[in-house]
């Protein structure tokens, strides 16, 4: 009986710990703006990972065509008619050790994808670091939350 109570207690503790870890990761969810102010990105959780898609563009239309901007720099020609509005530029982030890692960030202006790690400076500010290979060789951008908590 004593063992059963102990087992139930540790299961309860483990569940609480898992839930709080999930909650901590979920503070990434929301609407964010990169430092250049050209876009707004909605970060959401799908399955166990975090993804961010462009939901607003300061200049939604291509000045050359007058039509909505497309992913014209994609290396795959068959995907160049994917609209930038709705584009998932942040993919596959996993929350661990106080940061979101193992993800990628896509730069639609160059058509390049970089490894990426996200750190929260506070509830309303993110450091988004894109890099190739080694974290030290990268660039950090500061994103601000649009709906301040």
């Amino acid at each position: 009986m004593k063992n059963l109570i102990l087992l139930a207690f540790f299961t309860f503790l483990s569940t609480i710990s898992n839930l709080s870890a999930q909650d901590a990761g979920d503070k990434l969810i929301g609407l964010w703006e990169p430092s250049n102010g050209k876009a707004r990105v909605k970060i959401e959780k799908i399955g166990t990972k975090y993804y961010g898609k462009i939901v607003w563009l300061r200049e939604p239309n291509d000045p050359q065509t007058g039509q909505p901007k497309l992913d014209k720099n994609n290396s795959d020609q068959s995907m160049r008619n994917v609209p930038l509005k709705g584009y998932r530029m942040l993919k596959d982030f996993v929350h661990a050790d106080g940061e979101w890692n193992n993800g990628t960030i896509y730069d639609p202006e160059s058509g390049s994808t970089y490894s990426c790690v996200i750190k929260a400076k506070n509830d309303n500010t993110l450091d988004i670091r894109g890099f190739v290979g080694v974290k030290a060789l990268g660039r950090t951008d500061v994103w601000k939350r649009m709906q301040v908590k």
Partner: protein
Amino acid sequence: MKVLLSFSSFLLCFFFACTESKTITFKTAPIALVASGPLFEGANTAQGDFFPNIADFLKQQGLELSALENATLQTVSLTLPDSLNSDLVSEITLQLAADQVDMQKVAVLNPVPAGQTQLTLSVAQEQKKIADLIQQNKMLLVADVNLKKDMDADWQATAVLEFLLTVKK
């Protein structure tokens, strides 16, 4: 010398016989995609789950899972409950993902033709990790749906995906 040549020819034939492959089509059952309303104009996310059970499918063909060498997505078709669900949509982009495999953008339809309930998406030429994805227990379908205006109800569709599997004979 003659013996050596014969032996080499035999080895070559044996090698090709062992590595010969064939292709099989694997078509999914209809997969429900839903974006829960109310929905706002712009980018919205519709999701659906799919359990490929590819090992069972291969078993029915008399093959083991280890025989799977490659997989590519061939076609993606969407069926909408009514034309309202297509009239309100400007573009649809479809991605596949799983807990253990990164998300892959696999198909797009831009623009979505008005008044249609059957849609065929253009499939990506560059495809990665499709074989890894279909070997997962659960695969996620994520459709980014750009709405022309707000919608109170859910946006719904069913997707059927057709994969071409390359397997060892």
